[in-house]
């Protein structure tokens, strides 16, 4: 259906704009970008996505007309390069490797990545807007101590389980026992190999007298 990509894009745009609105550092970055248009062209699958910046956020559009003169920068890349770009690889390196082609104002790509990846959400301030300063702070403190407790509990649980399994119930061998057993098995393997060789020699000797000497 023609509308599902539009729905996805609308959802993504809303999410990004909501996130950007929560970041205290975003307005100054957006102000530098406002009014610019960036075209992303993905080779495989063939997709084009236009980002229009305005002072309060961004518009995502599937452009119908991808004439390059309408955009301040055009970025051509494939899915793998997009992954690397999001993963933090340097734009220059990708360009020198020939994986990424940027025409126009290349710094727009860098700024876009900074804007979207360095989002620093001030969720406590957002909470304070809903609940008031003091309840928000105590709730945030509560959440922080809960997460600390969660981390500590997880570590302790792992330690307890391993101790029980190795030492008390002896369900699994410990690392030292495992190594000792492996050494013994290796010795045994060598011994059986020798035995096999000796038997083969004896068999050869037994069959020898039958052959005419």
């Amino acid at each position, binding site marked *: *259906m*023609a*509308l599902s990509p*539009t*729905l996805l*894009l*609308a959802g993504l745009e809303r999410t990004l704009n909501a996130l950007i609105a929560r970041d205290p550092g975003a307005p100054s970055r957006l102000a530098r970008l406002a*009014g610019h*248009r960036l075209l992303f062209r993905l080779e495989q699958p063939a997709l084009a996505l236009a980002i*229009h910046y*305005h002072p*309060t956020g961004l*518009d995502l*559009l*599937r*452009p*119908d*007309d991808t004439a390059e003169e*309408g955009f301040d920068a055009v970025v051509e890349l494939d899915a793998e390069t997009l992954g690397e770009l999001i993963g933090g690889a340097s734009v220059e390196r990708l360009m020198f490797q020939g994986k990424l082609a940027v025409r126009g104002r290349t710094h727009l790509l860098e700024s876009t990545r900074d804007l979207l990846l360095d989002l620093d959400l001030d969720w406590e301030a957002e909470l304070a807007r809903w609940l008031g300063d003091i309840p928000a702070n105590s709730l945030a403190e509560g959440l922080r101590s809960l997460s600390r407790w969660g981390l500590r509990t997880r570590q302790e649980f792992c330690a307890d389980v391993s101790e029980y399994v190795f030492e008390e119930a002896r369900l699994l061998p410990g690392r030292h026992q495992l190594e000792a057993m492996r050494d013994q098995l290796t010795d045994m393997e060598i011994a059986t190999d020798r035995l096999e060789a000796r038997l083969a020699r004896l068999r050869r000797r037994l069959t020898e007298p039958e052959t005419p000497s």
Partner: protein
Amino acid sequence: MSASDKHTTHFGYQDVPVEEKASRVAHVFHSVAARYDLMNDLMSMGIHRLWKRLAIERSSVRPGQSVLDIAGGTGDLTARFSRMVGPRGRVVLADINESMLRVGRDKLLDNGLAGNVDYVQANAECLPFPDNTFDCITIAFGLRNVTDKDAALRSMTRVLKPGGRLLVLEFSTPDNPLFSRVYDEYSFRLLPKIGELVANDADSYRYLAESIRMHPDQETLKAMMEDAGLERVEYTNLTGGVVALHRGIKL
């Protein structure tokens, strides 16, 4: 109504004198203006936002261009166009109905959009602009309320710059007969009910459903746009043909 009969036109399923249609439509929109956005969301279950988004994508508007949003109502399209054309561009929100224009202007101003938006109360049949003025003209859910659609399309073509595009987003005819039945049930039974409950005005919403049925279907509207002098006319059915987006280019 027969096409040759020049003295009456349709208003929903009724025949009314030609000179009366505009005032009757005006009455409908005066009465729904205050709750227009809410009703749109309720009636289309929010899908109208996606239809409008698609129209925006197809418009390919660039910074610095001038856009005319006819029957722009409460300014949904204008708000986005205003951001897209930037400070060097211009968007004109035109509507024949004063109440709708007022609601639209207040909404845009409240959202901080001003400077590149102008408001004009105008009739689409005789647009008060010089020839070759706009790069893009949109009319979303407005054409079916216009008394003389051919005159309106000619007038829009006139004010369009060569190379400019006209986008008509309008209800149309679903192509699947089964879906068509469901849609009929919905729009003739449920819609007036919702209208009565939320906006306390069942008649206006009955008119809405009826006027949608009287509107030309996809191919007819395409032919009308070609007659008005537009070229490369094409249309996209949205939501199974409940709505169609027509696009024509003036060359």
